[in-house]
């Protein structure tokens, strides 16, 4: 798919901008702080209903404005898709698709497919497990939209259960009498989420391994993905092998239930839920060793890039070509990684690239440019042959 037209109203620094776009690579070029990332961030927002730079919607609304609007016309095979999101911090957002309102914003998830790579992605390798869980869950929901409901219900059950555990110690009467009913929800939803994540990691692993090999060049160690869970799993954390079946939701729910029972006393003492997918981690391997704590800076960058290119390849293999967004990354990559990234960027149906200096972007990607400056963004394209 590709974005044919993007319109922003009071989104970040943009009071109003209307921008026609084309398939193929386009470079957004302009001095730092002019609003290039803000433009492509909006495309990412349509895919995940979140930003790659901040959590929460408030920073996305232009200072002084009450709401932001992101409106995009996309082309998906031969069909036109019009998506409009009204961002209302502190209140429910509103989403319309082809002019009809969706009952809930999260029903948009999975419709607009996009993969965004940015300097912030180094945190996928070096940051907290929460970063990697979010990475997995966003990809999960993009492939299987039904899981958006499972994820948000799981989060809500967790908040309810933690609130109950927190008050349990000081509570009047038998506060724990209702813990069981939350446990039932927790293991049911947790089992579904776990099963989906495991299957996803197994599907993603070969794509990440291939991307890593392309990015890191010959002689580099092999990249692998594993899943470390608070629920006992066979081969916990070890690299998953593509094609081997992963555990099913019912088994995982049963394992989760057992583990919760074992740790009940500890949970009451600490006033929080200690087992479940919210405490798990995606484990990145380079050769035989886990990457975390061992990978060099260059290897960490390659791995972060390979994770995102792996997502791109997986979504493409699913049959829907995502929009590739590369925010300010070419300047920081060495020649080998640039070339590997340029190969993918050229092959994508649409690639949106931001750069402060045009020369940082490989030449073959520069034909179409959006010049960003002084509050405007204008598409300039070199015609074929000139």
């Amino acid at each position, binding site marked *: 798919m590709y974005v044919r037209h993007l319109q922003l109203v009071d989104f970040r620094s943009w009071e109003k901008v209307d921008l026609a776009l084309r398939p193929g690579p386009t470079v957004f070029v302009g001095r730092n702080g002019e609003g290039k990332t803000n433009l492509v961030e909006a495309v990412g927002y349509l895919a995940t209903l979140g930003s790659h730079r901040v959590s929460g919607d408030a920073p996305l609304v232009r200072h002084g404005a009450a709401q932001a609007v992101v409106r995009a016309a996309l082309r998906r095979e031969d069909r036109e898709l019009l998506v409009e999101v009204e961002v209302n911090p502190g209140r429910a957002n509103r989403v319309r698709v082809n002019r009809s309102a969706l009952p809930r914003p999260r029903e948009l998830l999975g419709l607009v497919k996009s993969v965004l790579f940015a300097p912030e992605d180094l945190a996928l390798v070096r940051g907290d497990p929460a970063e990697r869980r979010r990475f997995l869950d966003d990809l999960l929901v993009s492939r299987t939209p039904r899981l958006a409901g499972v994820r948000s219900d799981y989060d809500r059950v967790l908040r*309810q259960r933690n609130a109950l555990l927190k008050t349990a110690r000081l509570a009047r009467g038998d506060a724990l009498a*209702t813990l*069981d009913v939350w446990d039932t929800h927790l293991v049911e939803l947790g089992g579904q989420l776990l099963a989906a994540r495991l299957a996803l990691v197994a599907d993603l692993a070969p794509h990440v391994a291939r991307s890593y090999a392309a990015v890191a060049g010959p002689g580099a160690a092999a990249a692998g993905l594993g899943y470390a869970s608070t629920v006992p799993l066979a081969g916990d954390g070890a690299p998953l092998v593509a094609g081997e079946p992963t555990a099913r939701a019912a088994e995982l729910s049963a394992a989760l239930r057992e583990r919760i029972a074992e740790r009940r006393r500890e949970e009451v003492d600490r006033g929080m839920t200690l087992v479940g997918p919210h405490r798990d981690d995606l484990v990145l391997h380079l050769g035989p060793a886990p990457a975390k704590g061992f990978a060099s800076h260059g290897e960490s960058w390659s791995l972060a890039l390979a994770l995102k290119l792996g997502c791109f390849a997986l979504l493409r293999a699913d049959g829907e070509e995502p929009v590739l967004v590369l925010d300010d990354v070419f300047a920081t990559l060495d020649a080998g990684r640039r070339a590997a990234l340029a190969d993918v960027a050229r092959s994508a149906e649409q690639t949106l690239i931001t750069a402060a200096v045009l020369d940082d972007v490989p030449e073959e990607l520069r034909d179409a440019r959006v010049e960003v400056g002084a509050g405007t963004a204008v598409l300039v394209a070199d015609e074929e042959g000139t």
Partner: protein
Amino acid sequence: MYEGAVQDLIDELGRLPGVGPKSAQRIAFHLLAAESADVGRLVAALQRVQAEVRFCVTCYNVAEGEQCRICRDPRRSTDVICVVEEPKDVVAIERTREFRGRYHVLGGAISPIEGVGPDDLRVKELMTRLMDGTVTELIIATDPNLEGEATAAYLARLVGPLGLAVSRLASGLPVGGDLEYADEITLGRAFEGRRRIDA
């Protein structure tokens, strides 16, 4: 900030559910500009609900007098009770005309985040109603969301030893929603196809 009386009115309106500061201001100035007869009717309506409307001593539905219209109606069956969260759910179910028994209004659902546990709901009162053996069937019609499901599961377990037939509204209701937003046909169907919970 406005002068005393106006600001007081804005503050009071702002405490109402679903009314933010801006709407509170808008309503306040609307009332200031309105005919005094219109405002008089609103004041009278507020005073009347306060003076006359009570919660039914039996089922905790809204009632004028000791008992609500449904509990007073001798044609309504006394052997089945439908448990709901709020009085507005009684109205929604009555619209379907599928149910001819009595109700029990819990006054909410279990939600630890909001500090609501079984002791904050009319659960003990429900148990008292079930003790004398008249009631043989219990239909749990709490909202089809996590808190409603948790409340239903808790109640089903609690009344299990009494040996009643306990059922839950069948699926088909919009998940994650509010009972009151379900249309009559969907709600009616969910009622007819209610499924037995074996505690």
